[in-house]
């Protein structure tokens, strides 16, 4: 599946820890791992809470689901006006989860490198806060009857 299949209206779901959520509403920057973090692509798995099913969920308090619209991803960032960093979705299916995708940060014009991210903590904080600000919490799933 080519990554250019992402449409700006596509939705991604990301598992969030309780500690990274303020007032059951706001996602905090430390929820965003760089240079990439995992999501489920709604197109192939439209049950948001499925993203909580990963083994990590049990022990580390992953209780919330964040919803991110591809078209809402922030514009490229730069600390010096020379090197720009951009975030984009990438489909990265794994054996147990075809919908698995990642939001990846890479230098503009370069391939994504999992070992590369900005050195400036200020820029990283800005990127994390911007992405977190675009993420909307899905009301907690309540099993019926």
């Amino acid at each position, binding site marked *: 599946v080519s990554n250019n299949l992402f449409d700006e209206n596509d939705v991604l779901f990301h598992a969030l820890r309780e500690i*990274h959520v*303020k*007032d059951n509403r706001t996602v905090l*920057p*430390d929820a965003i791992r760089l240079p990439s973090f995992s999501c489920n692509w709604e197109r192939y798995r439209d049950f948001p809470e499925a993203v909580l099913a990963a083994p990590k969920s049990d022990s580390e308090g992953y209780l919330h689901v964040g919803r991110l619209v591809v078209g809402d991803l922030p514009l490229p960032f730069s600390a010096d006006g020379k090197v720009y960093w951009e975030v984009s979705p990438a489909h990265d299916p794994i054996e147990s989860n075809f919908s698995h995708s990642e939001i990846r940060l890479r230098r503009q014009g370069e391939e994504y490198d999992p070992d590369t991210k900005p050195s400036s*903590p*200020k820029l990283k*904080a*800005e990127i994390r*806060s911007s992405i977190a600000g675009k993420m909307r919490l899905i009301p907690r799933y309540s099993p019926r009857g």
Partner: protein
Amino acid sequence: MDDALSRCALYFVAILSGGTNSDSFGAITHNAPRATVVPFSTSGLLSNGNQRNWVKQIKNNIDDIRAENQQWKASFHLAELVLLSLDELNLKPDRVMAASDDGISFYFFRSDGYALIQCLESKEIVALTKEEESDTQEVWDVPIDLTDINLAAFDIKRFVTRQPAEESSPVSYRV
């Protein structure tokens, strides 16, 4: 008076005057600073016998983070410096956690926003304020000295205690 100058003046008035009760900080406003009520005391270091309960609680939080990240050194040292400033201002963090990069994050909440101070293993401190409704943020590096850490904490206290309708003011000393 320029905002940064006004705050620096307040700081040095505090030092020269011997300081006052930090609980009186809330009386200071950005537009009408009053030199008689200043946020900093000259007590300097925390006195173990006279610590606020929340400071002890935050120290316990930090110890928990330390237990899980025993290889970290610099971020704990920086966190201690930050905690000194927070205690001086009686500015209690709402949440303390391991940062997503190696380090410690101090979060401060208000109803429509939050502020963050990150102490990192890279020997850097970053501060951030976020207005949730407008999705606007301000991020700045905090130089590693007590004066600059105090000023950053001062700005964050002003941010978290400001009412949503109040106008924000740019801070010129940020780097």
